[in-house]
C-alpha cells in the first residue's frame, strides 16, 4: 500500500545547511540585541547621573551600584537565595493551585458561579490587611509566608487556564465524548493540552508575580535577620539610607525577574513549538 504515500520526508541535509547557519546567526543576535539594549540603557543612566550631577542618595551611578553589589554580595547573595526559595515555592503552589481551581471551575457552571467570586476576593484583598489573620491562624511563619505568596500569584494562572480550558475545540470534545472518554481522560488528553497556550501566558505572568509575592509575603509575614530575603534587605537599605545597596538589591530582583521570565518563555516555546501558531514559523 505504499502506493498511497506520496511525499518525501527525507531530511534534505544539503538544503538545510543554509537555514541552519542563518539560524545560528539568529541565535547570536538573540543574545546581542538585548545586550546592546542593556548597554545603551546603562550608558544613558550613567550619563544622566553624571551630566545632571544627581546625588548618589537620589540615583546612584551604575558604577556605584555595581560596586555595592560586589561589596555587599555576602549579604545580598544570601538574601537572594532566601527570596528565590520563596519565589519558587510560591510559583509552584500558584501553578498547582491555579490549575486545580481552574479545572474545578470549568467542571460546571454552578461551581463557577459559586466559587469564582471568592477567588476574586482573594485576589483583591490587600495582603497587609489580612496578614494578621494569616499570622494568627497559620501554624508556622513558613506556612503564613506561602499562603500570602499564593494569594498574590495564583489568579493569573487561574484566569488564563479557565479561559483556555473553556476554549477547547468543540469538535474535539465531540470526538472524545463519542469514544467514551472519561472526564479525567478528557481533561488530561484534551482540555489541558488545548489550554496550554493560555496556561503558558499565565505562567509568564505568574513567574514575575511569584517574585513579587515573595517580596510582599516577606513584608507581611516573613522573618528578619539572618534568614531574611531581598525584601528585608531592600527596606533595610532604604531605612539605613544606603541607596546604592538599595539599588543593588533592586538590580538583583530585576535580574531574577528577567531570568524567570526567560525560563518561562523558553518552557513555553519548547511546549508549543511543534504545533501552536504562536510558536511556529509561518511556512505556508
Amino acid at each position, binding site marked *: 500500500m505504499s502506493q498511497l504515500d506520496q511525499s518525501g520526508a527525507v531530511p534534505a541535509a544539503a538544503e538545510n545547511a543554509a537555514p541552519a547557519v542563518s539560524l545560528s546567526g539568529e541565535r547570536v543576535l538573540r543574545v546581542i540585541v538585548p545586550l546592546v539594549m542593556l548597554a545603551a540603557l546603562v550608558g544613558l543612566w550613567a550619563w544622566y547621573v553624571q551630566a545632571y550631577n544627581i*546625588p*548618589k*542618595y*537620589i540615583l546612584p551611578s551604575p558604577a556605584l551600584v555595581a560596586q555595592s553589589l560586589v561589596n555587599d554580595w555576602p549579604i545580598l547573595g544570601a538574601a537572594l537565595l532566601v527570596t528565590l526559595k520563596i519565589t519558587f515555592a510560591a510559583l509552584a503552589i500558584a501553578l498547582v493551585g491555579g490549575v486545580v481551581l481552574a479545572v474545578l471551575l470549568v467542571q460546571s457552571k454552578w461551581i463557577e458561579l459559586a466559587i469564582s467570586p471568592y477567588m476574586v476576593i482573594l485576589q483583591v484583598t490587600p495582603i*497587609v490587611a489580612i*496578614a*494578621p*489573620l494569616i*499570622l*494568627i491562624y497559620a501554624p508556622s*511563619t513558613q506556612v503564613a509566608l506561602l499562603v500570602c505568596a499564593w494569594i498574590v500569584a495564583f489568579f493569573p494562572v487561574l484566569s488564563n487556564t479557565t479561559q483556555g480550558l473553556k476554549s477547547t475545540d468543540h469538535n474535539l470534545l465531540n470526538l472524545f465524548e463519542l469514544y467514551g472518554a472519561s472526564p479525567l481522560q478528557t481533561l488530561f488528553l484534551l482540555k489541558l493540552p488545548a489550554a496550554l497556550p493560555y496556561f503558558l501566558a499565565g505562567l509568564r505572568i505568574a513567574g514575575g508575580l511569584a517574585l513579587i509575592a515573595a517580596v510582599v509575603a516577606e*513584608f*507581611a*509575614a*516573613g*522573618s*528578619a*535577620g*539572618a*534568614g531574611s530575603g531581598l525584601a*528585608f534587605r531592600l*527596606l*533595610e537599605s532604604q*531605612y*539605613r*539610607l*544606603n*541607596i546604592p545597596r538599595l539599588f543593588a538589591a533592586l538590580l538583583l530582583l530585576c535580574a531574577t525577574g528577567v531570568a524567570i521570565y526567560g525560563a518561562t518563555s523558553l518552557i513555553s516555546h519548547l511546549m508549543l513549538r511543534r504545533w501552536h501558531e504562536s510558536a511556529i514559523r509561518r511556512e505556508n
Partner: protein
Amino acid sequence: DEVSFGTNWLAQAEHGGFYQAVADGTYEKYGLKVTIVQGGPQAANRALMLAGKTQFFMAGNLLEPFSAAQEGIPLVEVAAIFQKEPQVLIAHPDTGIEKFEDLAKLPTIFMGKDGYASYFQWMKSAYPGFTDEQYKPYTFNPAPFLADKQSAQQGYITSEPFEIEKQGGFKPKLFLLADSGFDTYSTLIETTQDYLKSNPDVVKRFVEASIIGWYNYLYGDNKAANDLIKKDNPEMTDEQIAFSIATMKEYGIVDSGEAEKGGIGCLTKEHIESFYGKMVKAGVVKAGLDLAPVYSTEFVCKGVGKELKK
C-alpha cells in the same frame, strides 16, 4: 520665605507644636510661610527633601543621621523636639513580665522591620536573652499580639496602648525604650547641609518658631492647632489628642532632661556621642564615623520660649 516641612506620619498630637506655630501665626511672625506636608505609611518625604522639593523633614531618631554620616548623605539635624523616643514594648499583664529584661522570656515579639534593625539589635547587645527567633513582623495590627499572651509588641506610647486598652479590655505593661537605655532623640528637625549653608537665617527662624510653637502647644491654648490637625486628618479625635498630650507630659517626651535647662529642641554633642557609642557596641552602626556634619547645636539650647512654660 516659603518653606515646607514634611512630617513622618499623619497629623497627630505628636506634631502639635508645628501645627500650633502655623495656627497661631508664630511662623508668620518669624517671616515664614510654612506648609506642612503630612507623611503616612510608606510616604517618601525625606526623598522629597533631598530632591529639593521640600526644605525640612521630621526625622524619627538619631540612627537616621548616623546612617547619613556613614553614607555621606548631606543631612543635618538642627533640633530635637522629643528628648525621648516614644517607642515602647507592650506586654500582657499578669504573665510575669515585670521588668524590661523579662521580655527576653517571651517567645514572640512583634516588631516592624526598622525596629528589628535598630533597637532590637541594641536590646540583644545590652540585655541577655533576646534572640532573633523572637522576631515576628508587625503589620500595625495588634490582633496577633492580643491573640497570644506569650508575646509582646512594639508600639508608640501615645497610640497603641490607648487602642489596646480600649479593645483588649486590660491595661498592658509598657516599657519605654528610652527609659531602658535606648536614649535617642526623636522628632528631629532635619534639613540638608546645602540648605543650611545657604539659608542659615531661615533655618534659625524655623527652628525657633517651631520651639515656640511647641511650648504654646503643650502649655498654652492649643485649640487652633488641634483644629488644624483634625482638618488634615479627620479621623483624629479630641479624646486621642488629649490622651497623647497627657502621655507626652507624663513620660517627659518633649520636655525633660536637657530640654528642661536649654529649652525644647535642645540637642547636645555629648548625648549624641553617647548614644552613638551604644549603637556601635550593638553593631547597628559602624564605628569611627565623623558625626559633625550631620547635626548642628547652633540653633538650640538657648532657652528660647522657656518663658512660655507654665
